[in-house]
């Protein structure tokens, strides 16, 4: 059975609603990316330098990242030589396979929850990626699942950040642990963990102020937050999620690396993927730093935060390619 067929079947078992959210959210990505590849293959029959160069441009245009693209193209060249591929059309399955390999990795897309007691999730990232919004949406999700949730307003720096989280708290109907603006965020975390213990909540979601990853002192502050949580609750934080704006380019690699060093990032949240943004940078991050994407923000509504599912992602991204292979497959059986 072809890879795509397997993929299709496994997706068919999933709820249609989720598939549609992905499909809609990634519509722009799909047109921008998969269609271009197809167009290139039909237009350029032969595989030559020009072909490679254009393919390179498409991939880079999706923010896949220069290093990863170079690696991919080199691998393709080797395959082409080995399998003596001449027609561009024959290259297509090879390309899809390679891309999917890059994106898949080990599949632990779900959030790691504590076996018993409180699950602490810490959110980190640069300014303006959507940390607070993501927390609001995630709180909503947990609440719907019947869990008790507590929020920690760790962004004591940006004007209005605490109020923003409070508004989310009211909307969703969960409490927010806060101190004054300008207070030590590590102290807020301490309070929050204590409160979570006392009230016996299921999930504690911790907001932090946005910070650029090259600001040493701010990164140390984050490290302190991390240490305080760890000290107060030995197994925590169960997840440290780096929130990434899908429009971010190569700098995302640097973000993932430096935040990883200071706060032990365990996964990514990709936000604003419903724009024209391609989010190709997650492929690069997967490839170079092997960090999995756990959640994706696919819209402005409360329910638009979805658990990341690489199969859904690939399916939505390569819908065009998959249909084609399907058609070819049925032709073959007809013969």
């Amino acid at each position, binding site marked *: 059975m072809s890879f795509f067929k397997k993929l299709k079947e496994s997706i068919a078992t999933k709820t249609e609603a989720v598939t549609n959210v992905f499909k809609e959210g990634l519509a722009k990505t799909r047109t921008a990316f998969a269609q271009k590849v197809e167009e290139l293959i039909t237009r350029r029959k032969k595989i030559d330098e020009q072909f490679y160069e254009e393919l390179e441009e498409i991939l880079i245009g999706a923010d896949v990242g*220069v290093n990863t693209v170079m690696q991919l193209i080199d691998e393709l060249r080797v395959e082409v030589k080995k399998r003596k591929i001449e027609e561009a059309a024959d290259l297509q399955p090879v390309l899809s396979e390679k891309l999917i390999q890059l994106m898949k990795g080990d599949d632990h897309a779900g959030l790691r929850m504590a076996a018993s007691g409180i699950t602490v999730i810490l959110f980190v990232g640069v300014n303006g990626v959507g940390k607070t919004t993501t927390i609001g949406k995630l709180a909503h999700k947990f609440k719907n699942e019947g869990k008790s949730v507590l929020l920690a307003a760790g962004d004591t720096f940006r004007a209005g950040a605490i109020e923003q989280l409070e508004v989310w708290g009211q909307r969703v109907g969960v409490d927010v642990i806060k101190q004054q603006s300008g207070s030590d965020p590590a102290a807020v975390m301490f309070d929050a963990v204590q409160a979570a213990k006392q009230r016996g909540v299921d999930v504690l979601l911790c907001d932090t102020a946005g910070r650029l990853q090259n600001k040493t002192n701010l990164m140390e502050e984050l490290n302190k937050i991390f240490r305080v949580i760890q000290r107060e609750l030995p197994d925590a934080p169960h997840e440290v999620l780096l929130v990434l704006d899908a429009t971010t380019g190569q700098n995302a690699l640097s973000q993932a690396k430096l935040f990883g060093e200071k706060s032990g990032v365990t996964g990514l949240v990709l936000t604003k993927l419903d724009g024209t943004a391609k989010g190709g940078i997650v492929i690069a991050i997967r490839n170079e730093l092997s960090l999995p994407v756990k959640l994706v923000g696919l819209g402005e509504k409360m329910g638009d935060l979805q658990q990341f599912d690489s199969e859904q992602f690939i399916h939505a991204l390569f819908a065009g390619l998959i249909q084609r292979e399907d058609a070819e497959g049925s032709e073959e059986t007809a013969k």
Partner: protein
Amino acid sequence: MAAFESLSSRLQNVFSKLRGKGKVSEEDVNDAMREVRLALLEADVNFKVVKDFIAKVKEQAVGLDVSKSFTPGMVVIDIVNKELTELMGGTQSKLVKANKPPTVIMMAGLQGAGKTTTTGKLAKLLQKGNHKPLMIACDIYRPAAIKQLQVLGDQINAPVFSMGDQTSPVDIARAGLQHAKENGNDYVIIDTAGRLHIDEELMEELKQIHQITKPDEVLLVVDAMTGQDAVNVAKSFHEQLELTGVVLTKLDGDTRGGAALSVKAVTGCPIKFAAMGEKIDSLEPFHPERMASRILGMGDMLSLIEKAQSNIDAEKAKEMERKMRTAEFTFEDFLEQMEQVRNLGPLDQIMDMLPGMNKMKGMKDMKVDEKQIGRVEAIVRSMTKEEKQKPELLNHSRRKRVAAGSGTTVVEVNRLIKQFDDMKKMMKQFSSMMGPKGPKGSKGGKKGLKGLLGKNMKFPF
């Protein structure tokens, strides 16, 4: 990430095989252009923009006479740099002023680009020029966005006009403008909600605000870290709103900021400001030539030089240079020099501005600890005058005294003295490299500096 080595060293590799040839052939240029292309793509410049740009530079580079210049790589960089600067808008441009006040400035951009923060910073900048700005809070969608603007307004003591989050932004803008006219505000800055450029409903709302307020400036706020998509964002905002300028935010990060070039190329609008930090007064005029070298990964040498010029006493610097050359550098000079460097600002920021520094191997691990500098200072200050001038006097018992006096340990004192000696040696090397007349242009000096830094450069703190 090996691919992130600087463009200059990569170009040197390309041209190293050139030796003995008089002219750069087309093939050499093609090789060089591939490296330039990679450098630009790594900096997130849009690939279409890169393509056009490369074609332009190629023309100039073919047939380049290299017999006169022994570093063709530098010549190519020079061409690339000039073209980039040109493309980025040549010289910096200022905010327009309406004939009849108030001057209306409208902010637009994606979510999280930094519109509200920039609105506050811009108001602060205008206040410095003795203007009376009014900020209008039109972001009724994001929770607490109005509150954020109000807090910023309180910080800088500037008025904020708001009507809560139940009134339509169009009405708020209209009423706010009226309010400004009545209260004699000469600048009005309209903060709008972040929106995706493909969100038709919200874009329509922006258009309406535009129609009613007839802004003199429509500024697109762009996150400097934006990737390839910057082109599409800028294009559709420009098509719908006729932008007049761009503000680049989060430029104090370690991004190379290729988005700046993409946005400029697509809209043709000048980049008017750059946000360089978290503080409210960190909005600076944009310098195209500096951005060009940053995109190329050559560091922000010019900014550093300018900072140094305004902060370092020229006379003292001259004397210091003489001392370095003759290696009669003492602990006293060391102390003085440290103070001067400190005047430049936080050390990690200075380090960032040096070319190649952030990408250099091992440099990432080197942390600049400001407290450590204080300790070093304490050690030096605990020495007697004689000891400072003649460090060789410092025997074991003297070192013990110094350690006790500065609240440190002998180990630390020993380390400092060792590093001081190393530094002296390095300076000797350094000065012989620069020649007796000082550095022969920054380029040669930089190359030497890099080589040195790679191996034995250790900061004494």
